[in-house]
């Protein structure tokens, strides 16, 4: 069904080192099992999508990966380290960065400051260093600001907008700033939660290109939750489908698309 090249690519993904691996990851809220025993892996330097109908547990799954939720069962292994019980800030420091489904920028801070906050784990200034503004702290601040502006330009925010309050930026720019803020922590794995939500087809297409560019230029792995099938099919090397918290299919985009269980989850049972 697939070409030999695609098969070879699939083998590389399956056998290569994984940047992220979950084993039987489960989250139970009271009587509701939001995520039910999901085991999956994100190969290094790949783009992997998680899809599924609304309420399938995708965002809950993300929140467990980033440490916002503590898994009820199972484990998360990032870059060879078990991070299941780590705090979110520790996981970020290890190299996982994320964006949010509904943009969560620090609205009253400027775009540059937002990206500077993203660098928090990489900067070292202490209270006393900050009060006395030692040469090292001054240097660090200058470099941090420079890096922030570079990142903002890299994701395509016009330099004139860099000092604007985040809440006054256009929707598209807010999404871009959020990505820049995530990149500021020098992540190895970038989690994007519905990055194209609210974008028009052109913008979605640009973002798709941009994700590839990120992967190739910054050596990132990208895990995204996405509803736009065109984006998913266009960019992902591997797709995982969740429904009612369970993993119902996994594989390359074309294979998943025709999987009867996936069709059923999205369109309902035939006949």
């Amino acid at each position, binding site marked *: 069904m697939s070409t030999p090249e695609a098969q070879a690519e699939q083998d590389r993904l399956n056998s290569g080192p994984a940047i992220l691996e979950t084993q039987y990851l489960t989250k139970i809220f009271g009587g509701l099992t939001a995520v039910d025993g999901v085991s999956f892996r994100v190969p290094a330097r790949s783009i992997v999508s998680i899809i599924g109908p609304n309420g399938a547990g995708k965002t809950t799954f993300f929140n467990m990966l980033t*440490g*916002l939720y*503590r898994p009820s069962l199972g484990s998360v292994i990032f870059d060879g380290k078990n991070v299941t019980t780590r705090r979110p800030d520790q996981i*970020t420091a290890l190299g996982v960065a994320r964006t949010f489904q509904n943009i969560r920028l620090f609205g009253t801070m400027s775009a540059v*400051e937002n990206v*500077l*906050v993203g660098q928090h784990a990489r900067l070292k200034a202490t209270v006393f260093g900050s009060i006395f503004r030692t040469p090292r702290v001054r240097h660090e601040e200058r470099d941090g600001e420079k890096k922030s502006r570079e990142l903002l330009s890299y994701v395509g925010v016009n330099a004139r907008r860099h000092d604007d309050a985040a*809440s006054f930026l256009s929707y598209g720019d807010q999404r871009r700033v959020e990505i820049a803020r995530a990149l500021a922590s020098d992540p190895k794995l970038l989690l994007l939660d519905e990055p194209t939500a609210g974008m028009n087809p052109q913008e979605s297409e*640009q973002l798709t290109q*941009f994700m590839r560019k990120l992967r190739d230029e910054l050596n990132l792995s990208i895990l995204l939750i996405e509803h736009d099938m065109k984006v998913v099919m266009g960019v992902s090397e591997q797709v995982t489908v969740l429904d009612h918290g369970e993993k119902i299919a996994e594989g390359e985009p074309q294979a998943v698309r025709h999987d009867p269980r996936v069709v059923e989850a999205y369109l309902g049972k035939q006949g």
Partner: protein
Amino acid sequence: MSTTTASKPRGIKLPRAVGKVPLSRIIAVVAVTIAILLPLFYDSGSAFIEDSTTALIYVVMALGLNIVVGFAGLLDLGYVAFFAIGAYTMGWFGSSFFTSQDIHIGVAEFLQAQPGIHLNWLLILPIAAIFTAFAGAVLGFPTLRLRGDYIAIVTLAFGEIIGRIAINSDEGVFGIGDFNLTNGRSGINPVDKIDLPFVERFTSLNFRPWYWTALGLALVVVFVNFRLRDSRIGRAWIAIREDEVAAVSMGIPTVRVKLLAYAMGAAFGGMAGTFLGSWFGTVNADQFEFSFSIFVLAMIILGGLGSIWGVVVGALALSFINTRLIPDVLNTVPSKIGLDFDLTELGFGIFGFLLVIMMVLRPQGLIPEKRHQAEFADVLEDGGEHETIVETRV
């Protein structure tokens, strides 16, 4: 990705974190110069200098609380506790209260002969800062998992607990033993006067050295506030205030950063407390009432939450209204219009009225923080409310 320019709301330029606007610096230099020279134009024992000194110490208090409430967004209603701990530290280490002790470090000749612990104020200052910073962290700990109003309730209780301990610790602490820690409502007095090296002794007749000491303390605290705000630490505080879930996902250790805010804020309260203990010459349990916490909070709100100059102005304004305007200037007004009551009894009513007027006319404060200007501007569609993740791990 290209920039879409269509229907973009007008942006408000925020000041850059690094670099300063020259105009504000000029105003600051002029204001500080006037503040330094001010006592020379008044009699050394004048009531105005006395009230100004108190006002400056309120500036220190308010700026301390501003770190917790204004920067980190943690509503603290128990700030009086740190005033209390600072003042008692002054009392314990700078009076003849512990008569069985005989410790003197860096104090004047005549104090050497007196029993008790007598340390120089410059030594008591860091001790009080450490004590209160620790107390601040202790207060912060139970509030870490809480948000908004619930933090206010816990801190309110903390302030009350410290107040009760102050009243009841004249015969044993928590009713254990019979050690006299605070001397209850009778209090610790007389408390030593501040004694700085190279200057003549502080007396209760010459207010000028007190004033300049208070001014020095206030300037240091203003400076520290600015430096912290424009640093990695300050950005972390503001990020937590704006959106805690996003902040923690960006690698900010919320526990450490929040406790730091509580500790820093408390330390300034404690330092101001040592000054007031010495300035009033007495430390007694009746000084530490809930209304004090509200009074300091009102200064911040009046001036502008999170705005350093705003808080300075708010603190000076409310303090002068309290010590001059109501008791001196306006006090005869009721009798003139044929009413028979003492206006000072209405003090808090007047403050409350002021705050209500303020909330209606200028909710962002007298000198709002630049960021809040953006928030209150009409262009903003919805307040940027986010759904809250029910379970956050800290």
